[in-house]
């Protein structure tokens, strides 16, 4: 799936495809490692939703939406709330200890395999190693999964 960098979720990883930016900005970004094929991760979102910190080549770079929306990335991970029925690996859980703990109780942990059995309306139904659970859309937004 190719999306603008600005659309990635916290913690999500992708591979840069293309920079649709004016030459000077592109040149500057090239010097920082923004070239196609490079792995990039959204690490952090600022208090007011913008700018965001991206990790590329081991360093953290801040970009605003006005730039990150013109950088296209290929990503195989999606927020769980967008996942259609099928098998996935949990790659990131954005949330505090409490949230993680609650998810652990229903078998949802980073690195574990889960199956989406239903994604309609406000609820997403999950089968994690035999444990059935249902998450709200908001909760599912904070869980990033990778396709098998």
């Amino acid at each position, binding site marked *: 799936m190719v999306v603008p960098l600005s659309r990635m979720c916290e913690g999500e990883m992708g591979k840069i495809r293309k920079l649709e930016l004016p030459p000077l900005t592109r040149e*500057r970004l090239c010097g920082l490692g923004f070239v196609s094929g490079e792995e990039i991760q959204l690490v952090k979102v600022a208090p007011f939703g913008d*700018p965001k910190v991206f990790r590329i080549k081991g360093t953290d770079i801040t970009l605003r939406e006005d730039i990150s929306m013109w950088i296209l990335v290929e990503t195989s991970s999606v927020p769980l709330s967008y996942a259609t029925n099928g098998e996935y690996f949990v790659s990131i859980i954005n949330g505090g200890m409490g949230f993680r703990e609650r998810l652990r109780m229903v078998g949802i942990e980073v690195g574990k395999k889960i199956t989406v059995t239903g994604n309609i309306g406000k609820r997403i139904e999950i089968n994690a190693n035999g444990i059935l659970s249902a998450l709200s859309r908001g909760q599912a937004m904070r869980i990033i999964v990778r396709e098998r």
Partner: protein
Amino acid sequence: MENHRDEIESRKSTIALLGNPNVGKTSIFNALTGSRQVVANWPGVTVEKRAGVMKHHSHTVDVVDLPGTYTLGATSLDEKIARDFLVNEKPGVAMVIGDAVNLERSLYLLLQVLELRGDVVLAVNSVDEARKAGFEIDKNELSKQLGIPVVLTSAVTGEGIEELKNTLVKSTKSSSHVHYLFSDEVEAHLRDLSERIRGNPSLAGFDERWLSIKLLERDYEVQKITGITLDYDFSVEIAETRYKYIKRILSTSVKGKEKIGWNFSEAIDHVMTHRFLGILIFLAVMYIIFQLTFTISGPLSIMIEELLGGLGRAFGGFIGVDWLRSLVVEGIIGGVGAVLVFVPNIFILFLALGILEETGYLPRAAFVIDRPMYAMKLSGRSFISMLLGFGCNVSSIMSTRSISEPKERIVTILVSPFISCSARLPVYVLIAGTFFGSRAGVVIFFLYVLSIVITVLSALLINKLFFKGEPSTLIMELPRYRKPRLSSIILYTWNKGRHFLEKAGTIILGASVVIWFLSYFPSEGAGSFAAIIGKSLEPLFIPLGYTWEMITSLVFGIAAKEVIVSSLTTFFGNLSVSGSSLGAIRTLITPEVALSFLVFVLLYVPCMPTLAVIKNETGSYKYVLFSVFYSLAVAYIVALIVRIVGGLL
């Protein structure tokens, strides 16, 4: 004789220090030359070239520290300085400093330099940190692959510095020039372009291949000097080729562990840039700095005050001549002393700023605060510059060089004088202490808040007036957190604080003598020249209610804001931080006039050095004039409002 010739010869070759921002160029420069330039943990500290001399055995070589840059296609002013030095001044040796923890990106710049010229040395700095992070760098392999000398260094532990010096004095002779190949298509274009360039005698001093590569990257400056503009663009492909080449080199020369779990930086960052806590932490940090500046320094200031008082009495005791006693005791010791009392405040302020800069927190604060800045069409980057303004507006304006957006830079320059610099602090403490006693802290805090409010409003207005609100960008690297080292902090504090002492010994001393003279002749008090100056301007200040002494001190305060303190002291007799005296002024004006005076001091005309640097950095008197008249108008209006509102309360 032999030795002598050798020295002259080696002096001709200059070593230029290049590298990405924040890799430790200035730290290495200090280590090589024994200089004490300020280093700090954020990208964009050095914004001008600085020369020093490295002495090694019988060699004496000039070393030039340059601003950091990610590529040679400079986009901001500081990057242009680095690039122009490299391209036009053709230093004998180009030393590229890389970051051992992030070698890949450092080598990208190195390759660009290698495309341009030979005689390149690579110093891989911060090896101490790389080892801790579990990287092992094989410098011989790296050197073999790149075809240039490579030294592993740490400016912190001193590792590799001797070796670097040896390598540098040796390499002033070699002339290897490394080439690597791009795709066939690009190479074919490069051959064609080189052919065209070779036909142009005015370009003889440049490397043809380099010019050709830059043309394919559509480099603006190179298009200008060659007069060639191509309608195709290979910059993406060229950049990708460079990175591929780098990956190949690193695959054999660097061994690193896979990173597991959270590291130190990430854990701290999680809190510092947290969605809710981030802003709170920032405000708390600012408040703590504010508190430290006033509380810790209090007792120290009183000590200095007593010391100076004793000195004054001692001199007063044995100088028989009336006017001379007055000059020494009231003019010099009183005038300069009134400012010296604030040495502790100012050093502690710089100490706090130094810690802030050394830890790497500053860019995080910029990140957290960027969104509100965006509303003013500024960015977190300009916020860093403004924050430095709490120390000194001059260094704040200088630091705007690394803002890549020219308009954003101008707006930042024009509004930063409203940031309350350390030189204004003595005035606040003195007047607020005299009139508001235990509530002085609140008054000073109000002034700082007002300073920020006016800065924000002015940014909005100037944007509307001149630039029709064009947005800026924010492409900023967040450095690794570092434990501030005592030596760097002391160096930082001394470097910045020293300036204050120098001012005390020069401008303030001079102004104190002049003011004493003006207030003593032809007759002391209301008949003096000082009174004539003040009284001639008095009609303008009737609405504000300032006395001629206050007006005269404002006039002289344009030289340096601290002078306001020395002149008030001369006019009203001994003032004191402990709030014990200053009787005369208390009977003359009311507290709301005093507050309005403080507001005026905060906002009115920037000091001379600031005006000079505005001229220098914007290249235009237009902005200087704007700054003078705009700030005068703002000061007058706000001071008037404060007086009126204060009078009603």
